[in-house]
């Protein structure tokens, strides 16, 4: 009877562990929208990330130290270095342009345009990932696609934090966008015989 009780406890423990496994749900997202964006500048950011064994000096907390301890007994090395590009864009929404934003002085052949505010956004990243270095030796297993997807996710998260914490990225992008807009509209209007002044909201 006592043995049955112990076995029940063991079975309950196993069932409890199994229940805590994350449920895999595939949610499908789809969106299509008409936009009126005038894209004025694009920034390419490169990010490099590595997949490596947890080592004692890198480990934080008990679990990672235990992982580093287990790695000590493994034969061989397993390291992968990957990179990919992420793209940021600066644009103005032409849907926000109002009639009063363009003042035309026919007499003096002069046009003053006040363009809408410049917005910045991530347009995306490379679909693929570049393998900069790979070394798998001894009895170690190859790096899996799942691991590469995970490292890409970590790289994406840290890149976003870096961009958010450093205004230099958006400042440079906006500056480039303003210069390009001025150059484009000035030339466009000059070809039609107008002098111009381009400003932003």
């Amino acid at each position, binding site marked *: 009877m006592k043995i049955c009780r112990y076995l029940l406890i063991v079975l309950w423990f196993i069932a409890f562990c199994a229940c805590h496994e994350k449920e895999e749900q595939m949610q499908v997202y789809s969106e299509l929208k008409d936009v009126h964006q005038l894209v004025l500048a694009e920034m390419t950011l490169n990010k490099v990330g*590595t997949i490596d064994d947890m080592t004692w000096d890198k480990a934080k907390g008990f679990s990672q130290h235990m992982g580093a301890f287990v790695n000590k007994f493994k034969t061989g090395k397993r390291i992968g270095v990957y990179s990919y590009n992420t793209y940021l864009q600066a644009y103005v929404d032409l849907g926000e342009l109002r009639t009063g934003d363009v003042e035309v002085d026919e007499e003096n052949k002069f046009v003053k345009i006040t363009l809408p505010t410049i917005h910045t956004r991530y347009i995306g990243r490379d679909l*693929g990932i570049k393998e900069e270095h790979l070394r798998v030796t001894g009895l170690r297993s190859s790096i899996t696609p799942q691991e590469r997807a995970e490292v890409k996710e970590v790289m994406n998260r840290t890149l976003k934090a870096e961009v958010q914490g450093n205004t230099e990225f958006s400042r440079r992008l906006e500056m480039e966008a303003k210069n390009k807009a001025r150059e*484009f509209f000035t030339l466009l209007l000059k070809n039609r015989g107008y002098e111009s002044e381009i400003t932003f909201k």
Partner: protein
Amino acid sequence: MKKFIVIACVVLSVIGGALWWMESHKVSADTIPATIEDVKGMVKLCALEIHDDVPMKDSINGKWIFAKGRINGYITFDLEKMEYDVKGDTITVVLPPEKVEVYESTDKGAYRVYDAWDNTLFGKGELTTREENILKERMKRRFVDAVYSKGYVRRARATAVSTLSNLFTHLNGNVVIVDYYPGGYGVRGAENVKK
């Protein structure tokens, strides 16, 4: 004896649990701070945005993958390549060829691999980075084909004509926007079209 079996079961369960738990902490994923590779000015009109979760079940060299990627598609027009013709006080502007730009989204969990396996005899090979990139490139081509076949390019070109007409109306011009290829120039762009 029975007591011994129970104790062994408990000990093995605990060791198994501990090993499984340690497994997830054996790999470290480090990153190096991002660098700016390029900043370039451009003038292009973006007329349509497509954000889609695209499943990918495909194989190469007998190795399979089942994954899901969130794709951002943009249909754009390079306004710096815009051709125009002045006749009297009317300017005729020709809508340039469209470009379908495809990226992987930067949303959280945008690319997720559900399963990867080797279907060859005795196959234990993992999909390499090069092979995975080839499969993703195929997915990109299928996405671009779908953009054309679903009529998204036609819709984007119509939107672009309307947006440019509005812009030039604001600029007080007598401008006519002409679209010679409302269905699109095709995946190879302008060189695909005999003038």
